[in-house]
């Protein structure tokens, strides 16, 4: 049994300690917003917050997050900043297949919470996410809007 705190609730999950958090979320808790993309910490599709910090969940052993607070998009989208991120992406049709977007929405919410952040830093965080559909231009536009609104200080256009 591993004790997990996810989205503000305590859970005991009956999985081996080395089980990646992603599978505990999807298999045991039925939380499907975090997606499997690579299982290699290379694409960002599985991103969640661990104690408020964005992290890929696909290789993170559940035993490593015991005692820490895990937050998935299911909870973020119910909170004002997460909802704002999701709504801004939806309003901009900022996706094609959409598969990369739950992970990106987690990162954007994390950035909005920490804003003001330098645009370079925001780009570095987004660079942990792959999108194969080429939805980048729209996602970047939304990111700029969100971060400008969050800081009151519009980030510089990327070079």
């Amino acid at each position: 049994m591993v004790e997990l705190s996810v989205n503000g609730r305590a859970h005991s999950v009956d999985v081996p300690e080395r089980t990646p958090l992603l599978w505990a979320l999807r298999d045991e808790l039925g939380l499907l917003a975090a997606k499997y993309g690579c299982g290699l910490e290379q694409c960002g599709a599985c991103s969640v917050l661990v104690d408020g910090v964005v992290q890929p969940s696909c290789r993170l052993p559940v035993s490593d997050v015991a005692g820490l607070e895990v937050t998935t998009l299911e909870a973020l989208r119910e909170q004002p900043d997460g909802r704002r991120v999701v709504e801004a992406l939806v309003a901009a049709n900022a996706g094609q297949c959409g598969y990369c977007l739950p992970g990106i929405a987690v990162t954007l919410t994390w950035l909005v919470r920490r804003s003001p952040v330098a645009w370079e830093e925001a780009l570095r965080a987004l660079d942990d996410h792959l999108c194969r559909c080429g939805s980048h231009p729209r996602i970047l536009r939304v990111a700029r809007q969100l971060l400008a609104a969050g800081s009151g200080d519009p980030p510089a256009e990327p070079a």
Partner: protein
Amino acid sequence: MTGPARPGGAVPALTEDGRLVAGEDEPRRRVLGSLVGHPEVDRWVDLAVEGRVRVRTGKVELGQGIRTALALLAAEELGVDPALVDVVPASTDAAPDEGFTAGSRSVEQSGVAVRQACAHARRLLVERAAARLGVPADRLTADDGVVRGPDGPSVSYWELAAEGPFHFRVTEPAPLRPAAEHRYVGRGMRRLDLAAKISGAPAYVADLRLPGMRFARVVRPRRRGARLTSAPPATAGGADVVCKGSFVAVVADSEARAASAAAELAATLDWTDPPPFPAGAADPGYMARHVVASYPVADGIARDEPPPPRPAPSAGGGAVLRARFTKPFLLHGSIGPSAAVALADDGRLTVWTHSQGIGFLRRALAPLVGLAVDRITVHHLDGAGCYGHNGADDAACDAALVAVAHPGRPVSLRWSRDDEHGHEPMGAAMAIELEAGLDARGRIATWCQEIRTYRHNSRPIPQPSGTRLLAGWSLDPAVERSRATPMLDFEAGGHRNGTPAYRLPTSWIVKHDVDDGTALRTSALRGLGAPANVFAIESFVEELAEAAGADPVQFRLDHLDDPRARAVIEAAVEMAGGLEAPGGLDAPGRGLGFAQYEGSMTYAAVVVELEVDPRTAVVHLRHAWMAADAGEVIDPDGLTNQLEGGLVQAASWALLEQVRLDEDGVASRDWESYPILRFGQVPEIETQLLDHPGTPPLGAGEASCGPTVAAIANAFYQHTGVRVRDLPLDPARVRVSLDALL
């Protein structure tokens, strides 16, 4: 086993990549789309649910926004709010069989059909209202879900629909609403499916949860084509092992367990040592040695006859140039690996898949699972974007085999990242040799083009014998692999965009079909042969312009008669403010690329601005300006999204992508060894749509790809003075080019 798979119902007259077969009913297909073959209005649209309109389509959502485009068209013709339209996911039980969703043909086929079916439905509703209200039909109007008479009396669509199905078969087109009256078409709307996807609601096949569900993974040999030497254990790592010949999978109660059991089992299995995989298969010399047939291409069609004699390049009396361009194998590289759910129960099989062709898949599955076609139902559910024929169908077959071995409980099977990179059918490598001669005035006089290409289509069309579904080749007895066939139709496969749009007094184009008979597998990837051909042609045209001492834009315009082609080129160049970037000697480079996709569809011109970091040899894209003419614009936002997505993906191909092969198969099996473009590498993009209301709406998913690759190569040349003719322009190659300058 069943007999040769032959379904009930009409097989759509489509080519293997989902295009219309040029034939006697082609003019009718242009105005009726897929209603030809599926003429019943009731099959496409019904108003059975109060206040809602249900639209059925055989085309599937691939992330291109087809559901939204169809909802807009239905709403416009019927006269209802688009929010009231539900586009039902395709299923072999209910939807019209429209073959593959591919090649940007969805609007042309399904869109036209939905539009016509809804125009007829509106006409039929008005007729019913006329009878009911006692008012002549021509004095009634139908809008906002209500048919109204001139002075007051009205009746809702749903009251009229309650009289029963229309029972009407479309043979002639109905008049469509004139463009000037459009309220939804051309305006765009929020994508119907994106809110759920972005917010992380279950939306994909791999998110489907059914009672009693089990989870499966496939276990594969390291070397492609290896067979098991001894039977695996019945269980491994807490999972049941499924073994049929050399097809091995594990099935467990959770996805975590399936993944860990697959890894555990893989370490214990013994496999044969098949002949080495052709690691050098992308090498142009290797390709030239494995040409199995050569076809002359005339008017865009490859002909099964000996090529005519090659014209002398110097006939025009001016300079003669020669060059060879190559494109490596590419991956589709879906962000979500292929997945499927299958349930075998009571002699029936139900499959949920993100395949692009559920009707074909159903027929291809039947012999492999030993069921009659009519015992199988295939439902489409969305997957991650596929950009062509990826592992979707193979994963569905894998899931079906596991489900049949463990009937009674649904099985959710998912490929790993290693499976997807290592086993999806690759986009074909190509090598294009060009030779052209100018005349005394500096115009192109002769043009010779040889296209060497692996095949671009091994979609799982049911074959007279054998199968194209991956797992079939591992069964015992193995079902023979049915190899891809060369595509000869208009602008198909490797000769797609292999015919320049430019005026060429003498041209000689030959397609060489390459097949080495090995375990190599290639299939349709976004644009098929077009991106490589456009890269070659548009690079070479600039080389010729330079030889002629002409401006590259003017040189193109001097060889183009089609005003729509000229218009996109002029628009893109004007958006960029010319092909000279400001900044003097240190200025970034700019380059242009142009094509009309498939010689008959969307026109696109792209100007790219880039810089090269001499220290890292990394190419940085700064800006891209794009002008496109996709005929009548149905959904401008969706069109822009597709065009810009194609631009970004093509930029990724051009700068980074190349499958690495070794003696086992694909060696680049993750995102580090097969990198793709990241956020920080994406240029600022500006897009302009040149709308042509009243002309047929054209798909645009592939139109920007070739022009983008070409624009990057041309900009690199302008910036560095080095002409790169082999893709990608990754740091290793750029470094070699820059060193050559010293």
